[in-house]
């Protein structure tokens, strides 16, 4: 009754009834892997919900940040849980985006006309990672402060404008008095608003251009389920499942125990010192980077510039440009609404596997010191090993993955052909059977 009235109210003013009906009747293709993006979306919802709560208890200043985190963590179980769930949601958010990106990559969902959606998704990954980094730096503890110091050094390493850029972030020197306030406004305002806008565009495009599907589509139709009630209930289930997962993780597994690290001073450090998982590949890159400082016109270009600035920029450009690179390789620019099974294009599987391997190698390199202690080898030996694995291991894994995919595709095709072949069995002289092509009648 009330709903009907609300509907009438808006319909009389906006003509919204037809549109609401359209939204509710819209069809969405269905596959388990399509829920990865939704999982990410609902992690963001959890982040906003817990994050808003945290803004009421956190003091964004160098003097007060750490103490306020300890205070609200100790004060109530809710405070501790909020912080835990917030951090776990962030970790899961970025993980979900990465896996979702992988799904889109391996099924070639990025093809025309969805290149814009792909670019928006990659931007979301970058924004989410930076948001994560600024967020876990906010408590101003020894571990995150060390990460900030390294980020400062990377900013500082940019030719010509590095000092200015680092100074802008710090508000003068290091650690600048404005660093925590800057990070705070970036973390709770600029970046979340950016994520919200990117998400709106990303999802708007999925809605407007319609989702891809695995079902073959000779008639050019969407094969799927209605938004209402099928899909609504499904996505509601995903939301609550997401909320359950991050809450459970937050309740059971301690993450980022800053109370064990202590407040930040630029002369104290934890050992080992390694960042959150999504930033680890950059830390690994810094460890593997060559110890060279080149000079350009007499000015130093510090060693951290190459692994810390150039490498991630190149990686970003490669991923953003992938739909166009793919186009160049496949020489195909047709509309691709139907997803392909990953094995359909073994070379793409190879490229994807190589990129994933490169990321994994760098991530592993970020804890080489602990591995060296555990395995009783010199850390320099591990550095050498990872330096070799980064290019050659990636290529090797890529090649193997491509070969496996090709093999899989061939055996699938073979099995399909087997099933469809009809033969005629004929008794032969030895008493066995010979298969023979059936007589055409």
């Amino acid at each position, binding site marked *: 009754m009330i709903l009907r009235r609300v509907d009438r109210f808006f319909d009389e003013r906006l003509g919204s009834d037809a549109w609401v009906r359209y939204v509710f009747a819209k069809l969405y293709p269905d596959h388990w892997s399509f829920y990865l993006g939704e999982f990410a979306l609902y992690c963001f919802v959890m982040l906003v919900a817990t994050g808003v709560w945290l803004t009421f208890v956190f003091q964004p200043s160098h003097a007060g940040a750490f103490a306020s985190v300890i205070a609200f963590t100790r004060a109530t179980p809710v405070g501790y849980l909020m912080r835990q769930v917030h951090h776990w949601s962030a970790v899961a958010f970025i993980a979900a985006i990465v896996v979702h990106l992988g799904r889109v990559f391996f099924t070639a969902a990025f093809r025309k006309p969805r290149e814009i959606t792909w670019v928006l998704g990659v931007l979301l990954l970058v924004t989410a990672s930076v948001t994560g980094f600024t967020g876990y730096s906010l408590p101003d503890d020894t571990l995150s402060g060390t990460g900030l110091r390294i980020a400062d050094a990377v900013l500082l390493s940019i030719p010509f404008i590095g*000092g200015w850029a680092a100074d802008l972030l710090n508000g003068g020197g290091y650690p600048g008095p404005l660093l925590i306030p800057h990070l705070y406004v970036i973390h709770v305002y600029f970046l979340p608003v950016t994520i919200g806008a990117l998400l709106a565009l990303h999802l708007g495009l999925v809605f407007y251009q319609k989702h891809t599907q695995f079902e073959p589509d000779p008639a050019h139709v969407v094969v799927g389920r209605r938004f209402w009630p099928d899909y609504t209930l499904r996505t509601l289930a995903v939301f609550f499942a997401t909320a359950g997962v991050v809450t459970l993780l937050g309740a059971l597994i301690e993450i980022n125990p800053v109370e064990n690290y202590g407040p930040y001073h630029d*002369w104290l450090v934890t050992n080992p010192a390694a960042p959150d998982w999504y930033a680890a590949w950059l830390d690994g890159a810094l460890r593997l980077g060559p110890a060279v*400082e080149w000079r350009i016109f007499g000015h130093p270009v510090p060693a951290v510039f190459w692994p810390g600035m150039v490498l991630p920029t190149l990686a970003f450009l490669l991923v953003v440009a992938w739909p166009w690179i793919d186009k160049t390789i496949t020489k195909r620019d047709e509309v691709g609404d139907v997803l392909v099974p990953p094995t359909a294009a073994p070379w793409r599987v190879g490229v994807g596997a190589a990129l994933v391997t490169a990321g994994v190698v760098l991530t592993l390199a970020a804890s080489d010191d602990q591995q060296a202690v555990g395995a009783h080898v010199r850390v320099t030996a591990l550095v050498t090993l990872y330096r070799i694995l980064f290019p050659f291991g990636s290529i090797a894994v890529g090649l193997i993955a491509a070969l496996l995919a090709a093999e899989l595709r061939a055996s699938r095709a073979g099995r399909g052909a087997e099933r469809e072949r009809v033969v005629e069995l004929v008794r032969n002289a030895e008493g066995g059977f010979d298969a023979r092509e059936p007589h055409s009648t």
Partner: protein
Amino acid sequence: MSAAALLVAILAALGAAVAAALHDPVVLVGLLAALSAFAAAVAAGAAAVQLRAPNTLTEPRHPQGPSAPPPLPDDVLARRGAFGRLWWIAFAAFALAGLEPLISLGRMPRRNGTAWRGGARLVTPQGTPLRPDDLAVGGVTTVFPEGRVDAPESAVLLLRLQDGVMQLGPERRDWVQQGNVAFSKICTHAGCPVAIFRHLTYELYCPCHQSVFDVLHGAQPVSGPATRALPQLALDLDRDGYLVARGDFAEPVGPDSWWRTL
């Protein structure tokens, strides 16, 4: 009329940028910026009057939702003239004027001075001054200039070695006091504290990316990604027998940047 106004807007914007860069009085910068804005407003307004269609158009008014306005004549979007190009120049000038506020947010180059001065006593983080015998041989501690504990980028590692094991160049011979030698604690790679001293091998170790510095040879990097030695703090003794610095570091501490040589 509008082209002339736009020209004024461009010149005023450039003028404001130059005035801001030269740190001219606020009034001058502000007046030029405001003049630029008003001139652009006049330019756009005058152009709107000039370009106005001769007769008023109509579009059917549906109670809800969009409707179809009369179609755009083909030449409207394609029309490009000198005035249009002038607008691009104007936007470039506005962007240039916006550059100064942006640049002013950071200094270039950033200078890494520390709190060390000649005669400053070396004190522990608790503020206790140290004599040459306070550290046992093989010992290490973090020190700051007296009165400036926790000062940014000023943390120093004080090490005590056997007398005479250090292999320094002649110019650094008297930087050591009875086996006490001091290096910046801020890693030259990416700024982490170089927190670990392996006294058997005389190596300093950075836990962030495993750079290793050879203490005996002036903390030169021997392994890991660091490319520059940890700056050494020259030590002296004051009249009361306490360890003091001879002055600030001779070179900048911490990670390198483009402007470090300046």
